[in-house]
């Protein structure tokens, strides 16, 4: 039987306010345990919560960015349960009436656009942390995180593969950073996903029983967990067992999920409106104020890239996958302009390709690289591309230079522990001059080299003439090799074709 996978995601994005959602304590990460927990955070008798307006502003920003409805009145409720890292014995969270409802996010899956509908986004406070290591026969409690503002962003069950889920999560991750509401640091838990996964026979319109995978804090784990869970569910059903609604945990060590609790032993959270907090009223003037301070959104930037930079929609999508990449690309493009050239008159495909293919590939190699830490500055990359566009060097030489600078940046950063760029624009020109990297575009020189190559490779010439296209590429390669890669590849092509013509 063919199975259809149905996935909905719930994402907790930690809002980057400097103080907590209901107290004045700092939200900075990494302080000594319990040094950033005030009377309200540790729930002393008699203390009361006061809503941080900044957290509301962040939530509204998100709502505006995804085209959602901003509820002018929303309610904070208490979710009651006992746990040592939950000081009040309840979590304050929006339940029946969230501040943000609806909206959607359009994401690129491979090269296909897909729209994921959002159900809601609501404000809530984070719990503290239970520390099970370092304490013999006991559990330590660190309440620094208690009361940190979270925005829980819930989707409709609109995704049908781990690839779609990961694309959505990446796009959401980029968006919350783009609009400056979350630092997106997944190692520190600032952005974590729960995945609701079910399967059903293809074509069925009834949802299967779902299991929720909790607390996935990397895109790779998200993908692995979903893939494992989907296969597990299909096996269960095919072997005649029923899926029981449950909450499960993903174990990165084994790559498998394991049961935490079933619906039967789920808590009754006894939600009710928190009498310590008045309903949250969002006034028109506040909404307008937030609206006026919104940055250009990825979708708008993307449209502008297509219009002003003449990029394809796919290229534009890739370059707006994060604020840093978009910003970087803009810098590269500007630095690659020839004298007198203006935006719109120039062809930026080369810049786009360079950023998408070279930079993105290198970024992927260094998985732990923070988003801002490109190893080569946008000015340097732009200058390399300028020289390519001018025909001073060919694309391959450009690529080599980029790789060389990248490694230098990597090395120097590793040595100093600080963030250092490799290379600089002037160095590009110095190296071209000192190492003779200029492209060979003189046709008589290239003709002579081609003649030598043809004479030395009679077999390939014969092969080509009997219709073996591959032999042609080999001959081009020989010619490039003879010039140490500096020949203008287009000219080599043309001259070879002419000389081999019957």
């Amino acid at each position, binding site marked *: 039987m063919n199975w259809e996978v149905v996935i909905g995601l719930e994402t907790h994005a930690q809002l980057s306010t400097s103080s907590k959602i209901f107290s004045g304590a700092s939200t900075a990460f990494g302080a000594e345990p319990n040094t950033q927990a005030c009377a309200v955070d540790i729930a002393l008798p008699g203390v009361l919560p*006061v809503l941080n307006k900044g957290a509301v502003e962040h939530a509204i920003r998100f709502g505006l960015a995804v085209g959602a409805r901003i509820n002018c009145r929303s309610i904070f409720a208490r979710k009651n349960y006992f746990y040592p890292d939950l000081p009040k014995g309840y979590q304050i969270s929006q339940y029946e009436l969230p501040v943000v409802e609806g909206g959607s996010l359009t994401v690129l899956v491979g090269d296909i656009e897909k729209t994921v509908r959002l159900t809601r986004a609501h404000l809530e406070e984070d719990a503290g942390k239970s520390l099970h290591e370092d304490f013999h026969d006991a559990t330590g409690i660190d309440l620094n995180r208690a009361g940190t503002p979270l925005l829980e962003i819930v989707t409709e069950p609109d995704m049908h593969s781990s690839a779609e889920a990961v694309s959505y999560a990446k796009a959401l991750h980029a968006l919350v950073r783009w609009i400056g509401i979350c630092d997106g640091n997944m190692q520190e838990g600032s952005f974590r996903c729960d995945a609701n996964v079910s399967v059903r026979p293809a074509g069925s319109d009834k949802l299967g029983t779902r299991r929720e995978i909790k607390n996935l804090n990397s895109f790779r784990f998200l993908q692995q967990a979903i893939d494992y869970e989907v296969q597990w569910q299909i096996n269960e059903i095919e072997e005649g067992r029923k899926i029981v609604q449950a909450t499960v945990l993903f174990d990165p060590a084994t790559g498998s999920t394991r049961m935490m609790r079933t619906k039967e032993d789920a808590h009754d959270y006894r939600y009710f409106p928190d009498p310590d907090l008045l309903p949250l009223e969002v006034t028109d003037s506040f909404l307008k104020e937030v609206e006026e301070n919104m940055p250009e959104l990825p979708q708008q930037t993307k449209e502008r890239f297509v219009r002003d930079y003449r990029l394809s929609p796919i290229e534009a999508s890739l370059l707006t996958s994060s604020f840093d990449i978009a910003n970087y690309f803009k810098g590269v493009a500007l630095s690659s302009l020839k004298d007198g050239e203006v935006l719109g008159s120039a062809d930026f495909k080369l810049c786009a390709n360079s950023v998408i293919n070279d930079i993105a590939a290198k970024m992927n190699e260094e998985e732990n690289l923070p988003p801002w830490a490109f190893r080569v500055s946008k000015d340097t990359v732009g200058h390399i591309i300028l020289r390519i566009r001018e025909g001073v060097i060919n694309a391959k030489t450009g690529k080599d230079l980029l790789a060389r600078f990248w490694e230098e940046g990597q090395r120097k950063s590793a040595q100093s522990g600080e963030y250092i760029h490799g290379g600089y624009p002037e160095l590009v020109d110095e190296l071209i001059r000192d190492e003779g990297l200029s492209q060979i575009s003189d046709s008589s020189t290239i003709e002579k080299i081609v003649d030598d190559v043809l004479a030395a490779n009679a077999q390939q010439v014969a092969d080509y003439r009997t219709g073996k296209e591959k032999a042609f590429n080999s001959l081009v390669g020989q010619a490039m090799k003879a010039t140490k890669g500096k020949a203008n590849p287009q000219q080599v092509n043309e001259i070879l074709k002419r000389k081999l013509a019957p």
Partner: protein
Amino acid sequence: MQHATLKQLSDGLRAGKFSSTEVVQFFINKINKLNDILNCFISVDAERSLAQARAADALRAAGKAQPLTGVPIAQKDIFCAQGWLTTCGSKMLSNFVSPYDAHVIERFNAAGAVNLGKTNMDEFAMGSSNETSFYGPVRNPWDHERVPGGSSGGSAVAVAARLAPAATGTDTGGSIRQPAALTGICGLKPTYGVVSRYGMIAFASSLDQGGPMARTAEDLGLMLNVMAGFDARDSTSLQRESEDYMRALAKPVAGLRIGLPREFFAAGASAEVVKAVEAAIAEYRKLGCKVVDISLPNMSLSVPVYYVLAPAEASSNLSRFDGVRYGYRAENYANLAEMYEKTRAEGFGAEVKRRILIGAYVLSHGYYDAYYIRAQKLRRLIAQDFTEAFKQCDVIMGPTSPSTAFKIGEKSGDPVQMYLSDIYTIAVNLAGLPGMSIPCGFDNAGLPVGLQIIGNYFSEAHLLNVAHQYQQVTDWHARAPKDIVETVTL
């Protein structure tokens, strides 16, 4: 000095008749003599109080005294006070020394008042007799076999027995007014939101309100002038211009329309209580007031509505008492669940447990709509009754409590009878209105009767005016329980 009101002490201090140190020492001596019998204080710390008194005297010498500078005030043990044991009448907090001050305590400190000690109360303010306290029952100075009412029973007795000139209380369903009535003193529950709840240990957040307890309406005004005011740390605190609650005391009350709700005088109230209340109304008529017959048709719903909403909020508010971070923790447990279970089983008393259970039940899945939501709807109807009533009258009067002080143990075995003690006071909390109780006579056994006066929102100054004018022509508020007050002299 023992019969001096807060106002008289304030005037005497200003005139230099005595120092704050002398006043405080006098009351500490009285407490030392009588607290063993009355049990109205949980914590007394003479050194700490006297240090505050000396500081107050220094402040006065420096010409920086305010009206309450140097005056001793007893604080209900529900208010967190830095460095003071703050138990809320519970074993659960029997080791909790507060690291911070409640807003109310801050205000008294800023006014230069002296904290005379922490008064006994029903555990977590849950009770109408002060019998649920972990620290034992408080005795009514008018009859030691009787309760003083609750939950602010310790504060009421401290004032009634002249162990303190004034005290703070909190009122969730009548916890200031009912003990004031049963001990023959005055108590005011302000409009919800007038006094900050920050640092006041929560029982039912949407109903709790702190207020003053003293022997005259004028003294209540002096206290409220310090206690009231906006506090950004309490989201339900109301941002209003500060007012002088004593500004209208002297105004004549002629022409005042007094509403008498039929429901307050129907079956339930004892004949002697009704008689004393009617005599008080007659006194008001003599002052030129008019009486209007009114109805609060949903009145009978207030007790059931209250006993859904208050326990619901309490069950959640009391979740923080889990033995993890502070307070009592069971000694022996095998695992986390057992630590919670034993800590809460051992740390809470029976009445608190009963209300937590009721609260958890009405909030649980499948019952929430039938109980909690329905009670919220009825709460609005009860509030509307008052809105309608205040179209016909300026204040509402009636008994504070259906009976005078009952015997210790008389109702403690029957929660429903106990809950009915607050039948006339609860609706006021549900509506968020201000209400007060003043002494208006005695029953045949010589036990005090309280007159309840309810006003419209923010009418505290007017209520105090109405009470003050009555106290200008009567002397019920000046009566004292004889055997107690004559045992100590300065």
